[in-house]
């Protein structure tokens, strides 16, 4: 799977981020404190200036003082009892506005999904999971947006708020009550959608085959001893499996379309069981990647094959070019015992992006090799060759007992792992003028798998967090904007959050075509993105405005949630990887930070507003 950003350990992310120490100020905690302080100062100065214009300096000072002292004091008197009552009414309001229609829509989407989802896909689980998770995400975000953005403005319009704010209800109770109420409704809907999705995915993937009797042939050892049978299954759901059956009648329908089946003997009949292994929750232990170029010189990256997306870089076949991953913390616990108890092995998985400079034998795959190496002693295992097919996951089980390139018996733990637990995996392409492309996340040591159901729930938890952020932002926007405008505001927040990286790129004036004004000029005049402008005062003004706008955009980017990261979590589930606990904890903290921030802003906005105006 694609993992463009490394998932940092939680406390590293919180305290120092990409920086070397806490003092570098790149940790999430420091950034949060800077954003909070900036927003506070801006709000205070802005509010004071508005009051100054309207009421004069003395009254403006009094208002600013009361807002801070009275506001903070009142904020602390937010009552759970009142919040619960207001949340219950918000939830009832949603239910009586027939929010459950969303479930009907979701049901219809699932009903008709099979018309459009191609069952001949080689990774059907990824297809179905990706579909249900994406459908759920967009449906629940739309629903929460509509619920949260229009509720408070409707109360202003119908004046029902008059009867609430004339009770001992603080603005904070109202804001938090709405957020909580809509979150409750959204959570229930999301849980039902999750259950429906799980049933849908499992139901859609469920199938079995028959044994193709005519294809069966006996397997014998060189001395004529019977080893069982080999053959094929019937062709169902656009695929069939190779069968291997032991002498006792048990066997396995080998991997095809990302799953297997168990084979059992029932009397004199061979029966194929249900599909297994569609849903996975792989737990990878990732290493650091570096490359060797075609002459064997170490480099940070491989070569480019002309792809604009620079996520992967490539190594050339039949040269000394290699991709080398260094894993840390390798120990006995990294090894897995064989099912038959015959020793231990180190499970390594590899995803290869194949780039062919000529077509070659398309069905065969490109030949490559993989070795394990001790980073200190340079002792390495014999070449193990394989045929790589593009973008599929290849598994390699390295038995603990290996033979070195000097043909000496070695073991992984004693000879290949350094005393501090490091081990290298070296991959090369062997076919001349063919290329393998790798990113750091493409090779990993496979740890014991997690539960696919729990991973699925974690995926839904990720959707839930997006929903909570949207609700919090929409409720806050609705404290000072009318319903449709609050909705547009939240949509803008969401869209910019989904494209945050691009937004930051524009804000840093690194995108093609310049800043917002320059891009607009280029569009209107039909000028391409690369041609420079002739120097003139108008161009200087344009660039000056862009500079100011870019700074403002950069400031705004600090408060934009990175929704693409949340969507990325959903990809973990679809690709069959367990969502790391560090990522989930980080997302929860980010979600909490947005809720708290939105709540405080919403509280002050509502408190400063004349309800009856």
């Amino acid at each position, binding site marked *: 799977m694609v993992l463009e950003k490394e998932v940092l350990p939680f406390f590293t992310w919180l305290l120092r981020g990409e920086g070397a120490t806490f003092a570098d100020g790149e940790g999430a905690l420091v950034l949060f404190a800077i954003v909070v302080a900036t927003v506070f100062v801006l709000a205070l100065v802005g509010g004071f200036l508005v009051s100054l*214009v309207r009421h004069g300096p003395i009254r403006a000072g009094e208002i600013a003082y009361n807002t801070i002292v009275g506001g903070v004091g009142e904020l602390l008197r937010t009552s759970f*009892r*009142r919040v619960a009552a207001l949340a219950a009414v918000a939830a*009832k309001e949603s239910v*009586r506005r027939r929010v459950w229609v969303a479930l009907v829509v979701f049901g219809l989407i699932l009903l008709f999904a099979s018309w459009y989802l191609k069952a001949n896909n080689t990774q059907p689980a990824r297809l179905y999971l990706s579909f249900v998770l994406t459908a759920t995400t967009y449906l629940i975000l739309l629903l929460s947006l509509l619920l949260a953005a229009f509720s408070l403005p409707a109360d202003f319009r119908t004046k029902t708020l008059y*009867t609430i*704010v004339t009770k*001992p*209800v603080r603005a904070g109770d109202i804001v938090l009550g709405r957020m909580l109420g809509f979150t409750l409704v959204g959570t229930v809907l999301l849980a039902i959608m999750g259950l429906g999705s799980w049933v849908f995915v499992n139901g859609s993937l469920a199938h079995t085959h028959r044994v193709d009797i005519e294809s069966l042939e006996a397997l014998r050892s060189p001395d004529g001893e019977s080893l069982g049978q080999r053959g094929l299954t019937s062709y169902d759901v656009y695929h069939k499996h190779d069968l291997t059956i032991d002498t006792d009648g048990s066997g396995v329908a080998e991997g095809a379309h990302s799953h297997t089946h168990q084979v059992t003997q029932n009397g004199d009949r061979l029966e194929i069981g249900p599909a297994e292994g569609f849903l996975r929750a792989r737990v990878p232990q990732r290493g650091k990647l570096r490359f060797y170029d075609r002459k064997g010189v170490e480099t940070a990256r491989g070569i480019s094959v002309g792809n604009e997306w620079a996520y992967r870089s490539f190594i050339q076949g039949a040269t000394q070019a290699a991709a080398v991953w260094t894993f840390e913390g390798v120990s006995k616990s990294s090894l897995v015992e064989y099912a038959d108890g015959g020793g231990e092995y180190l499970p390594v998985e590899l995803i290869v992006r194949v780039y062919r400079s000529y077509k070659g034998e398309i069905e065969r795959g490109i030949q490559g090799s993989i070795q394990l190496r001790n980073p200190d002693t340079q002792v390495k295992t014999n070449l193990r060759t394989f045929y790589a097919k593009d973008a599929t996951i290849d598994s390699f089980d390295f038995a603990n007992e290996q033979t070195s390139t000097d043909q000496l018996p070695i073991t992984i733990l004693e000879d290949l792992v350094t005393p501090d637990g490091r081990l290298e995996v070296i991959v090369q392409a062997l076919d001349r003028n063919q290329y393998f492309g790798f990113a750091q996340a493409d090779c990993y040591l496979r740890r014991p798998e997690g539960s696919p159901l729990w991973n699925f729930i974690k995926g839904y938890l990720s959707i839930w967090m997006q929903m909570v952020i949207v609700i919090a932002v929409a409720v806050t926007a609705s404290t000072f904007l009318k319903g449709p405008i609050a909705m547009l505001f939240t949509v803008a927040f969401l869209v910019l959050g989904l494209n945050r990286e691009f937004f930051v790129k524009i804000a840093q004036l690194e995108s093609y075509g310049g800043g917002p004004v320059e891009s607009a000029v280029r569009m209107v005049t039909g000028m391409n993105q690369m041609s420079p402008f002739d120097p003139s005062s108008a161009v200087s003004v344009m660039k000056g405005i862009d500079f100011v706008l870019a700074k403002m955009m950069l400031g705004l980017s600090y408060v934009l949630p990175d929704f693409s990261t949340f969507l990325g979590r959903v990809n973990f589930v679809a690709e069959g990887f367990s969502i790391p606990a560090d990522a989930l904890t980080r997302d929860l903290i980010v979600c909490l930070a947005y809720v708290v921030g939105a709540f405080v802003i919403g509280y002050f906005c509502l408190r400063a507003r004349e*309800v009856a105006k």
Partner: protein
Amino acid sequence: MPAEAVIETRALSKIYRDFWGRQKVRALKALDLEVYKGEIFGLLGPNGSGKTTTIKLLLGLLFPTEGRALVLGKDATDVSKNERIGYLPEESYLYKFLNAEETLDFYGRLFDITPEVRKERIEKLIKLVKIERARKRQLREYSKGMTRRIGLAQALINDPDLILLDEPTSGLDPIGTREMKDMILELRDQGKTIVMCSHLLADVQDVCDRIAILHQGELKELGRVDSLLTVEDVTQIRARNLTDACQNELRDVIARHEGELLEMANPTTTLEDLFLSIVSDSEARPGRRVVGTAAKADGG
């Protein structure tokens, strides 16, 4: 000992402005007012005179442009004062998707009231405002009169010391109006302070102890209803069963004392009294046409 002031306003002013801060209208001009504990105080005035603005300022729904309002000893913008306040808005702005019980339970939960007391009060208030049979119906199905009743019930859920009623009889039929007025008097008898604003002068006259008359945002008159309405130089005598001779004799007495006889005639009843009498008779004896009889009975 001077009466305790429940509401005090000092030079309370309100200017409505547009988005750009420009003055649109001066709704209230330097209002000085005191409302004392245990009285029914009426705010009178034509539309746009500043009655509702005053109520909203007292409730903290609006912020004063100048001046100050103290309610129960606290600033009007202090939320904690609302613990002891009940408010019936001009229209009953309630959640239409809730039924009467849910409505009262919801508003009750906003106060620090134990569940037992809340339940007890809900029962009592539902009976008081006579909506027992509609307690499970959503408010969207309520008539205007029923909506006013549930509105009053929600205003009383916290057993408030101060009740602010904005046009309390608006939308009520004559029976509802009479019941509302009786309830207001009963609340006053329980020691509560009531501030009501209305443009229905008869209602204000019937129940208010003191009134303030506002016009174009300014206070024009303030005082006790009985003293404000007393016509000092006119004497009214009401008697029953006087003969013509006796009436002539009275005319002579007035003339002899150089008084001016303004009127001596059989009085008419009010339309409200006639209506209430007919309805009450009709309820006692269904199917019988009572027009005339009731008038005679009452007037004669």
